[in-house]
């Protein structure tokens, strides 16, 4: 299903502008992630698509050419996975998964067959008749997904579906979820504040900040060509290089760094993996901490910029704490972005 949002905004009673007017188009079968820090309006946007929140006047929500703006959540034929799963404690796993089908008044045998089908897909065989309270967190998460998918919704909406799980399980289920969503072939919108989750699951990521979509694109596009400093910081943890720009040179406390071109009034950022330890490099810095992470070292450096810089170093040995080192950064690895854009 294609989903078109036009001029969708939300002001809560009391005046909180949770979402500024936003347009968004999602193609059939596409998985889009809404990524952003806490309070930026991700859930609000998702809940308006679901019909759980009413957008401000002037908004238009279209599912496959059908205007659903005024439709209630019950009639929109969406599937929703909640952060807390919202499984019904008074029903078994089977009861939960079959509930949406029961609402569609399907014949008993068909409900049975379709519930079994989803149970198999979500690897819940053997748990069908359990009580919800007798399931682990990961199993509950899969029941929530199965319940949302059983009625074959037009679009699947997921609000931080993995955040209630512990870290190890989360990264495992992340890949599973990505696979399942692709198998279902469903159009899905997925809210998260974890960039790794967004990049692992989504075809396109909408990075949100302060009630607006700062940039939308494939994970790769966002990483390589962030539109703003915020996006660069949020996707790939870019660090600002704070110094004075003169023509095509950046004067840092630790030395002068060549830029790919004149960059007046811009902000310069760099990612940890692009900082090289290089005896011929133009910048000096002091090693503050060294952490061995197996495949590489994580080195915190002071003196090069006003704030600490993190470098990832993948040699066989690393400099010692307190040592002075020289750094180089390839000009094309620098992210040069307009300054003073909040979002």
């Amino acid at each position: 299903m294609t989903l078109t949002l036009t001029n969708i905004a939300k002001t809560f009673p009391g005046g909180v502008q949770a979402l500024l007017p936003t347009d968004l188009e999602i193609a059939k079968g596409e998985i889009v992630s809404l990524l952003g820090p806490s309070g930026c309006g991700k859930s609000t946007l998702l809940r308006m698509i679901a019909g759980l929140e009413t957008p401000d006047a002037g908004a238009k929500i279209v599912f496959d050419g059908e205007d659903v703006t005024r439709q209630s959540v019950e009639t929109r034929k969406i599937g929703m996975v909640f952060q807390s799963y919202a499984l019904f404690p008074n029903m078994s796993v089977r009861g939960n998964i079959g509930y949406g089908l029961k609402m569609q008044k399907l014949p008993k045998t068909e409900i049975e067959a379709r519930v079994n089908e989803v149970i198999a897909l979500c690897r819940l065989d053997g748990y069908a008749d359990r009580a919800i309270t007798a399931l682990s967190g990961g199993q509950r998460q899969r029941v929530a997904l199965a319940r949302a998918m059983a009625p074959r919704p037009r679009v699947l909406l997921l609000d931080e579906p993995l955040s209630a799980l512990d870290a190890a399980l989360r990264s495992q289920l992340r890949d599973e979820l990505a696979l399942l969503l692709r198998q279902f072939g469903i159009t899905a919108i997925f809210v998260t504040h974890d960039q790794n989750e967004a990049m692992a699951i989504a075809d396109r990521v909408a990075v949100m900040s302060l009630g607006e979509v700062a940039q939308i694109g494939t994970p790769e596009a966002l990483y390589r060509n962030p539109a703003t400093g915020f996006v660069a910081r949020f996707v790939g943890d870019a660090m600002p290089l704070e110094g004075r720009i003169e023509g095509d040179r950046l004067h840092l406390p630790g030395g002068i760094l060549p830029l790919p071109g004149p960059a007046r009034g811009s902000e310069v950022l760099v990612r940890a993996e692009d900082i090289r330890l290089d005896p011929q490099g133009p910048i000096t810095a002091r090693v503050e901490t060294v952490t061995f992470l197996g495949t590489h070292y994580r080195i915190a450096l002071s003196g090069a910029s006003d704030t600490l810089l993190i470098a990832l170093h993948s040699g066989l040995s690393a400099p010692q704490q307190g040592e002075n080192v020289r750094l180089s950064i390839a000009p094309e690895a620098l992210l040069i972005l307009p300054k003073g854009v909040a979002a």
Partner: protein
Amino acid sequence: MKSLSKAIPLIVTLLACAFLLIPIIQSVLAGLTVNYFRGLSSGLTLKWVARVLELYSGSILLSIWIALACLVVTLILGVPAAYALARNPGRASRVLEEFISLPLAIPGLALALALLQLYGTLQGFRTSWTFILVGHVLYTLPFMVRSVLSVLAAIDLKVLEEGAASLGAGPARRFFDIVVPNALPGILAGALTVVTLSIGEFNLTWMLHTPYLKTLPVGLADSYASMRLEVASAYTLVFFVMIVPLLMAMQWASARAQRIMQ
């Protein structure tokens, strides 16, 4: 020394129990003896119990009838009220909850007087059992509302309902499929409380009753006032047999609801 410090609380407890139980046992025995003044030596009999059932069966049935009617009314009013309060937490709900609970703070007598003042002149209503029912509903409704509300407040009702709505369930379906089943422990505890209180209620009912409409406790007072002691005592026995199992069930249901809430 140690055994003494353990023994003293035990003795105190036993004394307190005896203090409470002896009059009850005495009363029950009085209802079963042939002649109370001659004591147990006069022999045991069920004559007085039979007499009570014969004389006061109307009161017993009326009490059960009113209790059941009261239960139906408090269910119909109380469960949706508790649901509305749980769904809209806030100052207004707080105030409303206190308002519903107001009859608890007012003596039954005052409540009865207010009802008499307001409706006493409506002859048909004044002399009907529904007049007593209104009093009982006013008195027991807060117990139903609070019991259901405390269970509903402990579950994330809003999200559960949003989940059901996203699956296509309208408001009525959500109420009966999600709200009621999850509130069931609270509803059960509330229901037993309502029935127990209604059957045992005296203050208010005594003010509202007419000679033709006596409930179980009003009949009890009547029997002590106008019957021989053995009959009144047998009445106490009948009363116990009815109310004690209810009380025990109520305790059990409340404990269960508590357990589900935490």
